[in-house]
């Protein structure tokens, strides 16, 4: 079976006056149709940038310098800009962290949902009035589907007239109105109140089943990902350091960083356990080739870590980038 989305050896670099920053440095990932892949990492780990690269939304001075991105078997990096644009929002859609800033304050929500449709719809009627009616019907339908109450009457309202949770739903509607095959949800809950977070994650899950699409859930919260996804990829300093089925990662974490992440999550089933944060922090300097990226923060650092580390296969798709730990 070919994957719906396959990323091979992707590298995205930023040219800065201080030198080249390897935001994404050799990512290999696959997303199967209909599955939910969780992408975990702290800020600066390259998880968002990897999928902005997939979307073709990397801004200067950033640039995709190497790799292949196969969407439905076709390498989209070689496509003309117009063809690439035709895929965005139609085959692969993305939502941003904060709907407050992602929605345009000067346009009504109706216009903002409709424009995705208008940019792609080949199946809309040709007459102007008929077309308008059809667009409106589908906008109201998708807004209803994402749970916006009384959607038909609120098309003319502006984003600031909605609550944070409702704005998030509207943004999701913008992304899903063309029924894409795959949704990249970039930190969909970080900007929200805790009470609303679960609702939005439920909504994404519901929509995934409803539309039969795959979801890439980007989050810095391993707990959220563990709960909602089938597979996980852990990012660190521009690389995937560990990937596999959620169960395997939770039960047999093989990378010191993943272990650190698990230890830093508070757990309801074991309240007496101490929460241990990972010492130090991720800096751009860690994204240097020729050594393990986690070296500067790793308690197990040893001479063999001063080399490029390859992903090692532990079976059943569980792979890890570490030479020190082998379960």
């Amino acid at each position, binding site marked *: 079976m070919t994957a719906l989305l396959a990323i091979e050896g992707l590298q995205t670099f930023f040219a*800065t006056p*201080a*030198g080249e*920053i390897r935001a994404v440095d050799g990512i290999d990932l696959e997303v199967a149709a209909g599955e939910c892949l969780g992408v975990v990492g702290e800020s600066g780990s390259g998880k968002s940038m990897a999928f902005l690269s997939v979307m073709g939304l990397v801004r200067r001075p950033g640039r995709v310098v190497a790799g292949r991105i196969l969407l439905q078997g076709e390498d989209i990096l070689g496509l003309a800009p117009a063809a690439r644009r035709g895929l965005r929002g139609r085959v692969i859609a993305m939502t941003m962290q904060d709907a407050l800033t992602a929605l345009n304050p000067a346009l009504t929500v109706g216009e903002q949902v409709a424009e995705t449709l208008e940019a792609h719809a080949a199946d809309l009627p040709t007459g102007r009035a008929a077309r308008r009616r059809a667009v409106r019907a589908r906008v109201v339908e998708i807004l209803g589907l994402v749970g916006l109450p009384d959607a038909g009457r609120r098309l003319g309202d502006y984003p600031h007239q909605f609550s944070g949770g409702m704005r998030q739903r509207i943004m999701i509607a913008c992304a899903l109105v063309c029924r894409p095959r795959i949704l990249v949800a970039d930190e969909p809950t970080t900007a929200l109140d805790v009470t609303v977070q679960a609702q939005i994650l439920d909504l994404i899950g519901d929509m995934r089943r409803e539309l039969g699409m795959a979801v890439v859930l980007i989050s810095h919260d391993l707990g959220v990902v563990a709960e909602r996804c089938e597979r996980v990829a852990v990012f660190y300093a521009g690389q995937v350091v560990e990937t596999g089925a959620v169960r395997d990662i939770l039960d047999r974490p093989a990378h010191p960083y993943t272990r650190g992440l698990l230890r830093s999550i508070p757990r309801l089933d074991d309240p007496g356990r101490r929460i241990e944060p990972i010492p130090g922090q991720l*800096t*751009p*300097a860690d994204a240097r080739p020729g050594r393990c990226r986690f070296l500067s923060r790793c308690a197990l650092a040893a001479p063999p870590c001063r080399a490029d580390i390859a992903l090692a296969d532990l079976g059943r798709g569980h792979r890890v980038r570490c030479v020190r730990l082998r379960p």
Partner: protein
Amino acid sequence: MSESAGPLAAATAATTPARRHLRELGRDGATMAAVAVVLLFALMALLAPWIAPQDPYRADFLRRLQPPAWIEGGSWAFPLGCDALGRDLLSRIVHGARVSMLIGLLVVVVATSVGVLAGLLAGYLRGWVDVVISRLVDILLGFPYLIFAIGLMAALGPGFLNMLVALVYKEWVLPCRVVRAETLAAREQDFVEAARALGASRRHIMLREILPNILSPVIVVATFRVAYVIIIEASLSFLGLGVQPPTASWGSMIADGRQFLLNAWWVSTFPGLAILALVLAINVASQGLRDVLDPRFAR
């Protein structure tokens, strides 16, 4: 990405802020060139009587509208040619720098002092003082600049001193607004609270605690305003409301040349070039200064 700036920040942190500002300015070629031009004009104004090749007031009808030296009929003794009274243009431009620089600097220095004081009082004391000052600012902002100056000049009559007064009347408003806003923000900050708690006098707090901390934006505004005031002075003199003849002022020199556009283009052109060069240099230098002192606006 602040980490990547680490070594750079460490290297510069060792020097004083003033030193660092100077070094940053020095790195910007355009700013340095502009500063050089401004200094050149300042020197020209200062040394005018000694460096001007001719007496700027000596009329000589035989040299009436004599062209610049490189044109047929010109002479290197009068490099930029002569005006309708046969006076040397270069010498008049050199002397004209005195009027422009003096008015520009005096107006801005006086107006900034007044404005800073008014802004501090309004922003720190609040209450009726703030109401009175702010309303006055609103009203003065209601006049277009040149209209206000012209109206006042019409009332006061032309002349150097009257122009100074007329421009200061309106010019203090801008620094006042800036200082008021900055003072309002500063008075809530810890260092002011601390001074108050220690029993410092209002005067001490305003002049010693707040003023030094809000000086950067004031200086930035002031440098830009010098350029603007110079243009306003030239405009007033052009209309005949400013400095009176025979004193050489760039604005009135341009006005003199208006009748001779057909056969003596140089009379109007060179004084205008002088204004453009000086104002441009001040603006570019101010922009460089702003980027260093007030990085909020830097792009």
